[in-house]
C-alpha cells in the first residue's frame, strides 16, 4: 500500500536530516534505521543484482552506462573513483574504454616513428606493451561487503585485474585524501545515500581541481502519458519480477519507491551547485527515466 507522504517528507526529500525523520521508500524512519535497511536490501539482492537489472530495464541499463562512459570520454592516465560501484559495471566499462583509446594512441605513435632505429622501436614497444591502460586506474568503493564480493568475483571471471581496486567505504565519509581523483562517478547509488549533501561534499573534496562529478540516476519523467505507463510498470511489474527472480518483493518495492522519492533533475542540479561544482548540467535519457548530472570542480 502506498502511504501518503509524511509531513517531514519535504525536508527529508532533499536528503537533509533536519530531524531524526527520514524516508525509506514511502515509509518514515530514522537516519540509522534507513542506513541499516538499505544495507540489508543490498545484502539480500547482491547475488541477483545484475540479473534483476537486466530484467527490470530489459537490458537498457547497459546502454545507459555506455552513454555515461562516452560522456566521460576518459583519456589514458585518468584516475576514476566509482562510488556505490558494487558489482563493477562502470569500472569494467572504464577499463575497456581506456584500453581501446590507448590502443589508438599507440597506433598513431607507431605511424610517427617511421624513422627510428630498430633498437629504439623495440624499446618503446616494450614500454607501451606493458602499459596497456596508460596508467589509468579505477577504485571501486561501496558500503556493502556483499556487493563488493560479487564485484570481485565478476572481475576474476571476466579477467579484469590491472588498474582495478576495491575499497569498502561510505559515500558520506570517503576514506580518501583530498584532491585525488580525476573523475567521480556514482551510478544508481546516490538515491540510496542517506545524506546526499554529505556525499556531494565528499565528492567535491576528493576530486582534483578540474575534476569531474558524474551522477547517473533514475529521475523524473515530465511527459504525462509516459509517466503513467512508467508508474504502472514500476509498481505492478517490478516487485513481481523481484519476487519471481530474486525471491524478494520488499527490496524491489523499496527500489521503486525510492525512485519516486528522489529529487527531480533541477533540484539535484541545485544541490550539486550548492556544494561548489561549476558548469553543472544534466542530460535526460529516455525522457527523464534516467538522468546524467555532470559538474566540475573549478
Amino acid at each position, binding site marked *: 500500500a502506498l502511504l501518503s507522504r509524511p509531513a517531514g517528507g519535504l525536508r527529508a526529500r532533499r536528503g537533509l536530516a533536519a530531524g531524526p525523520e527520514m524516508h525509506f521508500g514511502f515509509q518514515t524512519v530514522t537516519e540509522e534505521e534507513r542506513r541499516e535497511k538499505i544495507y540489508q536490501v543490498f545484502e539480500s539482492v547482491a547475488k541477483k543484482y545484475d540479473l534483476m537489472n537486466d530484467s527490470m530495464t530489459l537490458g537498457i541499463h547497459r546502454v545507459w552506462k555506455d552513454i555515461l562512459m562516452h*560522456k*566521460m*570520454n*576518459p*583519456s589514458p*592516465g*585518468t584516475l576514476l573513483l566509482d562510488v556505490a560501484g558494487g558489482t563493477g559495471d562502470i569500472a569494467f566499462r572504464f577499463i575497456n574504454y581506456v584500453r581501446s583509446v590507448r590502443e589508438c594512441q599507440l597506433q598513431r605513435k607507431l605511424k610517427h616513428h617511421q624513422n627510428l632505429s630498430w633498437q629504439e622501436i623495440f624499446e618503446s614497444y616494450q614500454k607501451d606493451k606493458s602499459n596497456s591502460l596508460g596508467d589509468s586506474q579505477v577504485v571501486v568503493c561501496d558500503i556493502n561487503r556483499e556487493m563488493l564480493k560479487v564485484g570481485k568475483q565478476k572481475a576474476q571471471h571476466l579477467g579484469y585485474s590491472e588498474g582495478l581496486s576495491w575499497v569498502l567505504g561510505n559515500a558520506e565519509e570517503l576514506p580518501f585524501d583530498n584532491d585525488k581523483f*580525476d*573523475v567521480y562517478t556514482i551510478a544508481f547509488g546516490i538515491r540510496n545515500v542517506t545524506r546526499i*549533501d*554529505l556525499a556531494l*561534499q565528499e565528492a567535491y573534496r576528493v*576530486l*582534483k*581541481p*578540474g*575534476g*569531474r562529478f558524474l551522477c547517473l540516476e533514475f529521475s523524473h519523467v515530465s511527459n504525462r502519458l509516459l509517466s503513467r505507463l512508467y508508474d504502472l510498470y514500476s509498481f505492478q511489474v517490478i516487485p513481481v519480477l523481484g519476487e519471481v527472480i530474486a525471491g524478494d518483493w520488499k527490496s524491489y518495492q523499496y527500489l521503486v519507491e525510492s525512485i519516486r522519492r528522489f529529487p527531480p533533475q533541477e533540484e539535484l542540479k541545485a544541490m550539486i*551547485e*550548492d*556544494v*561548489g561544482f*561549476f*558548469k553543472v548540467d544534466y542530460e535526460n535519457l529516455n525522457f527523464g527515466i534516467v538522468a546524467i548530472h*555532470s559538474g*566540475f*570542480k*573549478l
Partner: protein
Amino acid sequence: VRCQQYPPLRALQASAALRRASDEHKKEPLTSSSQQHFDSPPAGHQPEQEPQGPRPSYTGHGGQESEDYESEEQLQHRILTAALEFVPEHGWTAEAIAEGAKTLGLSVAAAGMFHSDGSELILHFVSECNARLSELLEKEQKLVQLGEAEKKPIDEFLRHAVEARLRMLIPYIEKWPQALSVLLLPRNIPSSLNLLTSMIDDIWHYAGDQSTDFNWYTRRAVLTGIYNTTELVMMQDSSPDFEDTWRFLENRVADAMAMSNTASQVQSTGEAVVQGLMGAAVTVSN
C-alpha cells in the same frame, strides 16, 4: 556585457587557489609549494544571495576579490590557449585540451567541459588569430597616420593582410584540414561564418573602405572568395615558405581588381538601361 547563466557569480575557488599557489611559487622559489597551498587562503567572493549551505564561507577576504576573480569563461579561455601547444601532436581533439588542462595544474577531466570534437578549440584559435590580425592592421594604420609609413595601394594591402593572417596557420598546417572540416559541421557554421565575415570586414575597414552601398557586399564576397581559395591552396602547398600560395594570392587579387573595373562598367551600363526603362514606363503610362 554577457549574462551569466547562474545568478550568483561565484569565483572559481579551486583553480584560483592553484593560480595563486603557482604565482607565489614564482615569487618565492625557496619556500616549499605545499606549504603555500595551505597558507594562502582560497580566494573567493561569496555574494550575499548564496544559500547558507554546509560549505564554509569565505567572506572577509574582500580585498583579494578583484585580483583573483576569474569567471568560467576566462578559465576556459586559458585552458584552450594552453591546449594549442599540443595541437601539432594530438590534432584538434579533446586529448589536446586534456594536455592543456594538465599544464595549468587541472585534472585531465576538465576537457569534459568542451565538446569532444574540438570545435571550441578551433573556434578559439580562429578568433585569437583574427584578434591578432586586427591588432597588426591597427598598428600599421597608426604608422601611416603618423606619417612614418606609406599608405599601401589597395591590392598590395589586401595581399599583405591575407598573407599575414594565413601565416598564422603555419605552425598548425598539418592538422588544419581537420579543423576546416570541423568548422563546416552544421553545428559550427553560424560561429565559423560569423568569425570569417567579421575578419573580412575588418580587413576592408583598415583598407579604407567606407562605402555603404551595394558594393560593400560584393567586396566582402570577393575577398572571402580570395581568402578561402588561398587557404585551400595553402593546405596542399609544399613549396619553400609557401611561395606558390603567395603567388596564387597575388593573381587572385589582381583578378579581383580587374573585375571591379569591369563591374563598375557593367554598373554604369546597367544604370543607363534602368533609366531607359523608367523613361519608357513613364511614356507608356502617360
